[in-house]
């Protein structure tokens, strides 16, 4: 006898699909470059907002979004390896891949904020460091991409594996938010139906915090507290509103 569980709430699903689309778009815009590099930057900041939202939601979202529900502790991992884990959401292996993907995206975004392309693009926080540090972080940004790519490929292979070998469709619940599980399992996992549902106030709070981070990174902070440059380039003949640049790019 199966029951339908509401497993992934709407913000969680929106986060997942927006992240997937944004990461693909970020890759495409970076590969083409030229005019599109600015879009790459905007997508990066958007992904930062998504990440911040996910982390907050991992503490105040609904049950299966919360890290406490699925975090791969040692006891959960060893139970899983012994074949004794039972649950509705991510098994510990799935949990590890969630964390790996989040970490890889976080490093990509974190390094990207300070990166430059030696042509016309500087990350939004470039002014906080000097060019040598930015070049090193840009190098990291390039290398970490391959790690992220590896995790994404593994993720896709796992979905396919679950679909065709384990006969479990993982895509549908991530679209509809609903999953069918045996009643016995549902009872075992939440005997007193003590799952936490979606909270509108918590959702708005998460949105406010992630939007503030995005605003801060996009220039909100440096508008409030302007960064002093070490050297001021002279703007005599080209008197535009261009911010003075330290002449250091090679």
């Amino acid at each position, binding site marked *: 006898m199966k029951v339908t569980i509401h497993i992934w709430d709407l913000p969680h699903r929106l986060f997942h699909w927006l992240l997937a689309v944004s990461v693909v778009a970020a890759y495409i815009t970076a590969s083409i470059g*030229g*005019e*599109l590099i600015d879009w790459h930057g905007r997508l990066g900041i958007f992904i930062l907002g998504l990440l911040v939202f996910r982390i907050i939601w991992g503490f105040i979202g609904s049950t299966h979004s919360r890290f406490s529900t699925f975090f791969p502790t040692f006891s959960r991992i060893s139970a899983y390896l012994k074949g004794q884990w039972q649950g509705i959401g991510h098994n510990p292996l799935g949990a590890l891949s969630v964390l790996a993907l989040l970490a890889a995206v976080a490093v990509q975004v974190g390094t990207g904020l300070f990166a430059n392309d*030696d042509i*016309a693009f500087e990350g939004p926080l470039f002014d906080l460091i000097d060019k040598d540090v930015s070049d090193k972080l840009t190098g990291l940004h390039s290398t970490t991409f391959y790690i992220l790519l590896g995790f994404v490929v593994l993720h896709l292979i796992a979905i396919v594996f679950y679909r065709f070998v384990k006969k479990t469709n993982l895509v549908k619940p991530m679209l509809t938010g609903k999953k069918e599980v045996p009643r016995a399992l549902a009872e075992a996992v939440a005997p007193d139906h003590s799952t936490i549902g979606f909270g509108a106030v918590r959702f708005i709070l998460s949105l406010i915090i992630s939007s503030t981070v995005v605003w801060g990174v996009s220039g909100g902070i440096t508008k409030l507290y302007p960064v002093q440059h070490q050297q001021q380039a002279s703007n005599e003949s080209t008197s*535009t509103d261009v911010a003075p640049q330290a*002449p250091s790019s*090679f």
Partner: protein
Amino acid sequence: MNKKIPLAILLAATATAALAGPIEEQIRFRQSAYSFAAWNIQKIKAQVVDHPETYNKDSVAAAANAIAAVANSGLGALYGEGTDQGIGWKQTRLKPEFFQKKDEVTKVANTFNEAANELAKVAATGDVNLIKTQFGKVGESCKSCHDLIRIKE
């Protein structure tokens, strides 16, 4: 044996070396060229992409001409043998494979030339939208060279 012949050979060799430029000098000059181009790129970006309300036709045209001048200045002469190792203003990032990829490099270098010359032409017209598009193409040509022959840090 005339004592002046070894001396003549020595002088000729020194002169040739001075013309080709010691390795560090070539690296330094090309790093300077790209740095100067970057200054002009940033000027155009600021006036055409980021803050079009500050657009100054003469300023952008001068910047585009400067970039085209860099592209047309024969930078190939600064990529002599052995210049994949050395410090100009900073350690060069030229990939050693550069010397095996001469055909591809020539192709990519020509796209830089063509894009830069076209940008200079378009900048003279004052059409900001056209300038913006062509500016993007110049950026792509910069990137295609970096992707081909520059080591990522």
